[in-house]
């Protein structure tokens, strides 16, 4: 089940377009109804109008901020807007400056596309048939074509044919495959023929989440790179900031780069030869991957490690890159990571990944990146009104476990920073101290006993002073900083202060 933050709408389960696949599209032309094309194939249409109004610079610059202005604009405006400095009449060379008083030629009239009296010749109408069948011409043009079809059998014939052909275009791809199918198919394959070079289990969720985000981006297409996405995190208080889809993706790639770095896949600038010998497994593959990443546009060696600073450095370096390039850089990097650790051998799982202020072993860093990938994919999906499911149970469970394991450290950090309010007793490592039972319900759930006094203290049910119960997805959203600790829908029992500390510590796990 989903928590309050996770959207549980009609879209759940069914992918966008899942139900509309079989419906033939009847051309509904622009200007009819004023909202561009609105059919039930894509639930994002509302957002599409908004996103696109601002996304397509070349079309109608003056109206670019108005929702669906470009789609609703009258044809005459379209023409003048796209060629502001060259009105069509100018192409008629002999025209004098008083041209506006001279009756214009029929070609010029056509170019002007008068809104009321479409007066196209047969050839023009014929040339419009494809655009008409695709619902890609103006309402007036469509009207003219349709009038023409009533008295031109040849064109009517072709029009029907082309419209039937449009129905064949439909079947692009399923937009939203069940994420569980992936696991089932891959398992089925491996049952038929075991992998000689298996993927470490801890890398699986990262690969799957990256694939899911990539599929979302493919669905969105190139019109969305500058669509606004609200990122939320918790920094003592809830923070919300607007970024673009492209920036969010760059952010993911920037921090994923820390893993690339830990595997010794650093781009030029790093001393590759001084690599410690225990990295040999990864290092061999590193050479392969380096060939692909060696030409990376960023000076990897000079980038800061701290995720936020690193992200800003990436934004600065890559702000001119088109979204499609950002996507393929990110995607390539995710695939390189998964592939590299598959070859690296079991030792790689413990390689430390330096995040600047802290470090995680590689296996946890992979989970952390899978988590971030899901959360930010969800942010993007929210922004464009797409449904986006939580990860499959097993992956969700691994993410919950990582967050739960990181909680004692986060508690200690808050104490050091003077943010904790509960009275602490000093407990030395390995000794029993007070603990809180974190009970996570739903997919991927379980019980965790968290030491409250010191990360190193042992925790057992006997020393439990509080009990918190929460849904797994809700807990992840809390750890992502999407839910305020005070508002987290948690069942609580016992020491209220201890519970508050733990909820705040969970929220403090959220980085940008």
């Amino acid at each position, binding site marked *: 089940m989903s928590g309050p933050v996770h959207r549980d709408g009609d879209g759940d389960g069914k992918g966008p377009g899942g139900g509309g696949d079989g419906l033939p599209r009847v051309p509904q032309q622009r200007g009819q109804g004023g909202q561009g094309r609105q059919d039930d194939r894509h639930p994002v249409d509302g957002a599409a109008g908004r996103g696109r109004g601002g996304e397509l610079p070349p079309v109608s610059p003056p109206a670019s901020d108005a929702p669906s202005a470009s789609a609703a604009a009258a044809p005459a405006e379209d023409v003048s807007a796209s060629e502001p400095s060259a009105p069509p009449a100018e192409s008629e060379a002999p025209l004098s400056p008083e041209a506006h008083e001279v009756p214009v030629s029929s070609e010029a009239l056509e170019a002007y596309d008068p809104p009321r009296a479409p007066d196209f010749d047969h050839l023009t109408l014929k040339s419009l048939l494809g655009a008409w069948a695709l619902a*890609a011409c103006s309402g007036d043009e469509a009207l003219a074509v349709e009038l023409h079809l009533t008295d031109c059998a040849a064109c009517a014939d072709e029009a029907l044919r082309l419209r039937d052909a449009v129905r064949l275009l439909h079947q692009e791809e399923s937009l939203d495959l069940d994420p569980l199918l992936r696991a089932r198919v891959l398992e089925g*394959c491996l049952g038929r023929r075991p992998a000689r070079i298996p993927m470490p289990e801890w890398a699986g969720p990262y690969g799957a989440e990256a694939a899911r985000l990539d599929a979302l981006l493919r669905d969105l297409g190139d019109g969305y790179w500058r669509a606004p996405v609200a990122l939320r995190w918790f920094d003592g208080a809830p923070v919300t900031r607007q970024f673009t889809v492209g920036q969010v993706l760059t952010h993911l790639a920037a921090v994923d780069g820390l893993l690339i770095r830990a595997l010794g896949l650093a781009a030029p600038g790093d001393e590759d030869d001084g690599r410690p010998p225990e990295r040999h497994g990864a290092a061999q593959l590193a050479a392969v991957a380096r060939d692909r990443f060696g030409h990376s546009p960023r000076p990897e060696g000079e980038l800061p490690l701290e995720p936020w600073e690193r992200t800003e450095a990436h934004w600065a370096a890559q702000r001119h890159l088109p979204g499609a390039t950002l996507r393929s850089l990110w995607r390539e990097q995710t695939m390189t990571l998964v592939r590299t650790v598959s070859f690296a051998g079991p030792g790689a799982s413990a390689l430390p990944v330096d995040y600047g202020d802290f470090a995680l072993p590689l296996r946890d860093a992979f989970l952390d990146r899978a988590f971030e990938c899901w959360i930010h994919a969800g942010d993007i999906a929210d922004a464009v009104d797409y449904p986006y499911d939580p990860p499959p149970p097993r992956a969700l469970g691994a993410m919950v476990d990582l967050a739960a394991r990181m909680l004692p450290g986060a508690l200690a950090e808050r104490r050091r920073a003077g943010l904790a309010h509960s009275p602490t007793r000093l407990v030395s490592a390995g000794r029993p101290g007070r603990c809180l039972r974190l009970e996570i319900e739903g997919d991927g759930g379980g019980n965790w006993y968290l030491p409250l006094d010191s990360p190193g203290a042992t925790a057992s049910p006997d020393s439990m002073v509080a009990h918190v119960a929460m849904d797994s997805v809700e807990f992840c959203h809390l750890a992502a900083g999407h839910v305020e600790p005070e508002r987290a829908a948690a069942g609580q029992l016992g020491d209220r202060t201890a519970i508050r500390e733990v909820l705040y510590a969970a929220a403090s796990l959220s980085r940008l």
Partner: protein
Amino acid sequence: MQQRLARGEEAALAELYDRYASLVHSLAHRVMDDDEAADLITREVFGYIWENPDAYDPQNGPMRSWIAALTQRHAVYQLRQYENRGRSTPAEVEARVREANTAARADFIVTSMPTPLRAALELAYRERLDYREAAAGLGVSEDEARRRLRLGLQLLSTAMEPGGRPDASLDQHARRGLR
């Protein structure tokens, strides 16, 4: 990719799935008109490729087309199984097979048509631009955009003519492909 599959790289299998699963599933779904059956065919197709990494011959065209054709064969084979089990009448099955073959031809036409035509169709259909916007996006005149849309659809409409790829050979391949 093929070498990596042959080498038994699980990561390559995952990449294969991520790249082609939606293609396979939607083609299967189009033939079977049923989620579960499409899931099953998806498992079969990827299982077959993974077990027989050498079955694909790059000389015969892009991997995507090969996978599409393979899926089509599996799906049509499966559909005929339904017929044999009496779940559908022969006429229903034949109609579905015909439809599926038309759709497969259409896919083939779309993937093999000249890039400028495909790009124009993509913008107009998938990105939902009108032809003026598409012209701007492609950096061509509006006349040219109209021409490309019309020509692209004309090419596509040939898929509706019978006589593309014979069904019989599809079935034959399917029987060989399935265990």
